């Protein structure tokens, strides 16, 4: 499987964020998107996720399911955690599992993998920022998608959380997955770096 974007151009609010940008990633490889604030890291991920209109260029996923578009085969982990404060931790996760078409895989396993099984019955309103992020990561495990688009995935995670997430990402790559992550900090896995915006 190979994800590639050629000559991508993105315009936001009348200002060109980037143009002529090429990005490529193969099965089992991770790409870290780095660059200064405002360089367009998030815009690039949202473009790939189909959440921003493309102004130019092309995106293709070779070797994926031909019936599905790239966004339908991708997980997007954004700045916002997509959690409902009124729902319990387990309800939040099982909603996304059902909505995104996850298999019968028990969500308890996903919760245990991110270390949240002891708060499964707590409303998500009472979670800390790091715990909210862990719950979002559990979504990546509960539903299988080959492509992971991660925006600052390790923000708010503590040291053990970052190590656990590195192990989760390694497992995903070992299964033939693709990861594109916008980040300022090392992810703890082998990555190829794609630097966008600014010479510095």
């Amino acid at each position, binding site marked *: 499987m190979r994800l590639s974007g050629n000559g991508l151009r993105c315009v936001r609010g009348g200002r060109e964020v980037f143009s002529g940008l090429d990005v490529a990633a193969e099965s089992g490889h991770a790409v870290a998107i780095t660059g200064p604030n405002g360089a367009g890291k998030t815009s690039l991920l949202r473009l790939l996720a189909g959440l921003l209109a493309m102004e130019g260029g092309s995106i293709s996923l070779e070797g994926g399911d031909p019936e599905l578009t790239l966004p339908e085969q991708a997980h*997007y982990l954004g700045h916002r955690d997509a959690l409902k404060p009124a729902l319990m931790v387990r309800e939040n996760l099982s909603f996304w599992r059902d909505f995104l078409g996850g298999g019968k895989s028990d969500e308890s396993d996903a919760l245990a993998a991110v270390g949240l099984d002891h708060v499964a019955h707590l409303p998500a309103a009472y979670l800390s920022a790091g715990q909210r992020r862990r719950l979002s990561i559990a979504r990546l495990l509960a539903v299988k998608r080959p492509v992971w688009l991660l925006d600052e995935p390790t923000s708010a995670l503590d040291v053990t959380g970052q190590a656990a997430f590195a192990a989760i990402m390694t497992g995903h790559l070992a299964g033939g997955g693709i990861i594109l992550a916008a980040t300022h900090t090392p992810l703890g896995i082998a990555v190829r770096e794609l630097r966008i915006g600014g010479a510095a």
Partner: protein
Amino acid sequence: MTALAAVIRRDMRVALRVGGGALIGVLFFLTVVVLMPFAVGPDLALLKKLGPAILWLGALLASLLTLDRLFTADHDDGSLDLIVMGRTPLELVCAAKALAHWLAVGLPLVAATPVLGLLLNLDAVATGAVALTLLAGTPALTFTGMVGAALAVVLRRGGLLLSVLVLPLSIPVLIFGVAASNAAISGPSPFGTPFSILCALSLSSLVIGPFAAAASLRHGLD
């Protein structure tokens, strides 16, 4: 199907729990209707005449009050991004969300109508007629209101814009809802004609609403 059932289940849970919209809608309806006799005065004949219109206006405002959170809440917490990316067609998700909103907010308004009818000096037949027209007409309010909610989703203070957008669209529903109620209460025109048109308005909004809402959500992505 699992995905749509999950959406309905989640939205209803959120609406029924602390800070949800279900109870707010009914309480607002109650407040508006209770205020009316104080404004109009203790003229029982006049209250009886105005009763259906007051109940309809109350229901319209109450369902509008909670509609602005329909998509804004999902937009603010990032859920909308994942919903747009999902494999379920956005039109169906919009329909499921509107259905959940109607079940959680619209249906309780219908259920509260008999109690509030007492406050407006309506007899059993009149209350029944108003409740029946509300049952047939509130889906139209929810499904047209959803279009406004989708348009307002990316704007700050979208709730105010929503009212301005949606209230004019609700005029036909209001006209035929109140006309059908009055026909059942005092005649002489038949009940069937305005009621059929009310049902037709609801059915067409069930079809048009989800498509219009999905189109404006896609367009409003940023």
